[in-house]
């Protein structure tokens, strides 16, 4: 599901065993999922013991294990139970049943919603981004249906949801144990070390790989006094841009494949990409972004016509001065030996303007 450990294969639309095996092998072959537990959605189709065995051996041959079978067919359920495979009913069925039974169930579902949100927090994701992700994955993932049934729409304010669910959380703690079949998949412990949300379904031979990687970035003040002050901020790397799109024509990019030396000036209307270093004394002026695949030690002026959304990024940002739009910042006085860069390890950074101040953001791999 939304977990590195589990992999949901939806075979609800498949009718024959051959089709199931064909789609399954395609799904496992295309993506590397060795070591993962497979959750097989079968819907109503009937499988006998030998068919189930062949599916299981197929999964095993890809280095995975068949963990759960989701089916409405009672015969198939029995077969699976005989083979020590965990069986669960499709989520829609479960919701229906629970709604019919009693009122307490509302809390169970809100608890589910709560746990899903907790997962997101553990991941260190920005919540707005999560809502987007949830909306994108609505068709594939059960989160959204859980949320809906819990009376929470994905568009609700984060604080509201938090209040709703945290009030019920204490009560619902006890229900976790009773509600085994949901816990199998949505056990909170599974999510603890989760790094990214991924939802992969195999449906009609189409693979929808929605992977949302968010990058935690460090906010670093580019001031002489605050150079040591680094604090972590939960900023979605791709999402924090303003509502208006950054005006930068991607076609109008100057591409330079050389090192800029002292005294050399590069001026371009659009973006600038430099494969090489920018030595101290060199100057780069661009109407758009400046990207340096190397060490930037000269002066960089991005968006020199007043575009404050422009960015400067380099593998090693060591610029004497950074200017973005009409903002200006200079390198702290302590690091005063521009010709010697003691780093074999590059620390890719990006400079952009936040509240009229140029801030450096570390570009993390994770």
């Amino acid at each position, binding site marked *: 599901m939304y977990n590195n450990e589990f992999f949901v294969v939806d075979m609800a639309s498949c009718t024959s065993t051959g089709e199931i095996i064909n789609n399954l092998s395609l799904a496992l072959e295309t993506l590397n999922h060795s070591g993962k537990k497979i959750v097989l959605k079968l819907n109503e189709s009937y499988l006998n013991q030998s068919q189930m065995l062949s599916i299981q051996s197929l999964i095993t041959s890809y280095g995975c294990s068949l963990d759960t079978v989701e089916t409405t067919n009672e015969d198939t359920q029995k077969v699976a139970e005989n083979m020590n495979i965990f069986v669960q009913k499709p989520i829609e069925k479960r919701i229906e049943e629970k709604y019919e039974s009693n009122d307490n169930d509302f809390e169970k579902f809100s608890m589910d919603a709560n746990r899903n949100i907790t997962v997101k927090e553990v991941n260190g994701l920005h919540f707005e981004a999560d809502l987007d992700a949830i909306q994108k994955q609505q068709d594939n993932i059960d989160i959204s249906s859980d949320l809906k049934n819990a009376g929470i729409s994905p568009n609700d304010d984060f604080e509201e949801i938090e209040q709703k669910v945290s009030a019920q959380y204490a009560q619902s703690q006890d229900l976790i144990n009773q509600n085994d079949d949901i816990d199998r998949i949505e056990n909170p412990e599974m999510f603890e070390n989760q790094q990214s949300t991924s939802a992969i379904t195999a449906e009609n031979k189409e693979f929808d790989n929605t992977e949302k990687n968010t990058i935690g970035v460090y906010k670093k003040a580019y001031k002489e006094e605050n150079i040591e002050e680094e604090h972590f901020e939960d900023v979605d790397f791709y999402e924090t841009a303003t509502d208006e799109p950054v005006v930068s024509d991607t076609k109008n990019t100057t591409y330079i494949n050389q090192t800029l030396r002292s*005294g050399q000036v590069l001026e371009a209307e659009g973006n600038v990409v430099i494969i090489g270093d920018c030595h101290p004394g060199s100057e780069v002026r661009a109407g758009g972004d400046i990207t340096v695949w190397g060490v930037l030690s000269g002066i960089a002026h991005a968006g020199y016509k007043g575009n404050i959304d422009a960015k400067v990024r380099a593998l090693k940002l060591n610029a004497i001065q950074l200017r973005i739009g009409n903002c*200006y910042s*200079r390198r*702290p*006085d302590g690091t005063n*030996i521009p010709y010697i860069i003691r780093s074999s390890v590059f620390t890719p950074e990006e400079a952009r303007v936040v509240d009229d101040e140029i801030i450096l953001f570390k570009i993390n791999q994770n």
Partner: protein
Amino acid sequence: MAGSVIVITSGKGGVGKTTTSANIGTALALMGKKVAMIDTDIGLRNLDLLLGLENRIVYTIVDVVENRCKLKQALVKDKKNPNLCLLAAAQTRDKSAVDADQLKEICGQLKEDFDYVIVDCPAGIEQGFQNAVAGANEAIVVTTPEMSAIRDADRIIGLLEAKEGVERHRLLVNRVRPKLIKLNNMLSVDDVVETLSCELIGVIPEDEHITTSTNKGDPAVNDNKSLAGMAYMNVAKRITGEEVPLLDIDVPSNIFEKIKKFFKKKEQG
């Protein structure tokens, strides 16, 4: 109040014009004088680096000349001494970006507000030199005790004498190594002064501190231990009109004095 404009020049490159400019300027500022420094080495600027101000330069002398900013905006204040200002050269242009009249005007304006205007001259006798000398009323010719530097200094002194406005020029002998002079492998300071027949303003010994201070962006006069820094301090005092004897940079002549001096040094250090 009209201050004096002092140009630091040499003809030959690498003899220590920029180092001398940085140190004399800083020394004068330490003495409480208001000092402005102008780097006229457009395209090969280094004075900002020696003063540790390279990250503060926004406008340069070319911007002033081309009316992109006011003169006061282009002056970079020193981070330690508020008496000291720098007008930096542009790195991305060449000497022809400025002409002699423009520099004369800048010097004239700065003279009004500052006690001393130190002009760092580029090597050579072309446009850059002509520009730097244009507004000056005093000159310090830097040379080293080597034949090539002395010959170039001679040429420069000739040009300065022909120049109107430069009332006085004095000689500064840099990178003197007393040990080599003792062994007769280097021209002595007296030889240099005699060859050039010019008034002497100071003798600066060769010093390792200069290299480290250049890399740190902190002039040697700020360092009390540096012998060269002390010598530059004396030069600055002489510029203000003070009578200061030459610094003792002699190495002892016989073995007993050598031992005496060695122990003296050990006690100090």
